[in-house]
């Protein structure tokens, strides 16, 4: 493949995901009173073995909001952050301090769930508009676990049939500064094919 062809492939993926990120960014900005915004970091197809490295995942525990992609095709959206950033977000949404070692109750968990809902709904609405197929997020699940272990299972749908998986990575800024949040979108093989077909028409 020539470098021009490679550039075209990358541009097509960016055309697919840029509206999703833009939608999600607007929704997050409204949800957080302008504090948090998103931008497309990169879209890459990587070997299954290289997923952890591609996403800079460590073996530390992360806070995650996990949502499945509803509709005929499936996939996963995973919002990850370290506990410090999760506490900052919760504190900002609830307008009070949330200590790092504080156990979260229903209210704190709800704040994260709603963040996942808003982000993923906006994201999937844009994918729906682009593809003409309807997608929606499942109820969010908030968990603390090893991000790598969750992503590992999320990419399994693609790994069953393909040696490379598509990963869309998003960077977040809070009050204008980059923060270590990560939104990882892993489409199912069927959704990936639909996105490829759509990209080919752009």
């Amino acid at each position, binding site marked *: 493949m020539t470098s021009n062809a490679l550039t075209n492939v990358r541009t097509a993926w960016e055309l697919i995901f840029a509206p999703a990120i833009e939608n999600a960014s607007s929704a997050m900005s409204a949800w957080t009173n302008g504090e948090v915004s998103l931008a497309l970091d990169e879209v890459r197809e990587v070997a299954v073995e290289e997923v952890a490295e591609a996403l800079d995942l460590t073996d530390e525990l992360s806070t995650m909001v996990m949502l499945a992609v509803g509709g005929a095709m*499936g996939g*996963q959206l995973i919002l990850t952050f370290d506990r410090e950033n999760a506490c900052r977000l919760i504190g900002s949404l609830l307008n009070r301090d949330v200590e790092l070692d504080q156990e979260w109750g229903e209210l704190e968990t709800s704040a994260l769930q709603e963040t996942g809902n808003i982000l993923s709904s906006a994201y999937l609405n844009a994918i729906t508009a682009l593809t003409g197929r309807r997608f929606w997020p499942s109820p969010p699940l908030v968990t*603390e676990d090893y991000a790598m272990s*969750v992503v590992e*299972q999320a990419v*399994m*749908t693609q*790994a069953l049939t393909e040696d490379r998986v598509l990963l869309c990575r998003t960077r977040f800024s809070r009050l204008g500064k980059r923060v270590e949040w990560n939104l990882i979108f892993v489409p199912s093989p069927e959704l990936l094919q639909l996105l490829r077909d759509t990209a080919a028409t752009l």
Partner: protein
Amino acid sequence: MTATLTTRRAETTVGMGQIAVLTGDERASAVLGSCVGVAIFDEKKKLGALAHIVLPTSAGRPGTPGKFVDTAIVWMINELRSRGADPRKLTCKLTGGATMFATNGPFQIGQQNIDATRQTLAAANVRIVAEHLGGSKGRRITFECDAFKVVVESAGEPSVTL
């Protein structure tokens, strides 16, 4: 077929589809979800291997041997034998195979990995001496070769030593 083989001092991180071969006081770690961590050991030789296996069967697909149960275990046994291990004396500790998403995706892949691993080890006459399998949480495992210890950490739970 070429193998992903990492032999280092200190602690080696074993990524998806990789195998580490260890001797003496070397250690290796992995973070597992639905994948299985297979630690095989020859106690007399203080020689072991840890595989981070992704899928139950290669079904003829190309890929690194560590990616599939059938190819990984055969590769590990052959590699340990080539380094002086006695295949009749090998024992195994098994971890992983969680099911983390209950309602969407290839959700029994963790159990399929567990089943395939048990069958392949049985066929190779490698005895399983300890296991920490299934559930819905991820695991961070550390394999300490010289003592043949596998330490399993899960979020919100005390660590377990196999």
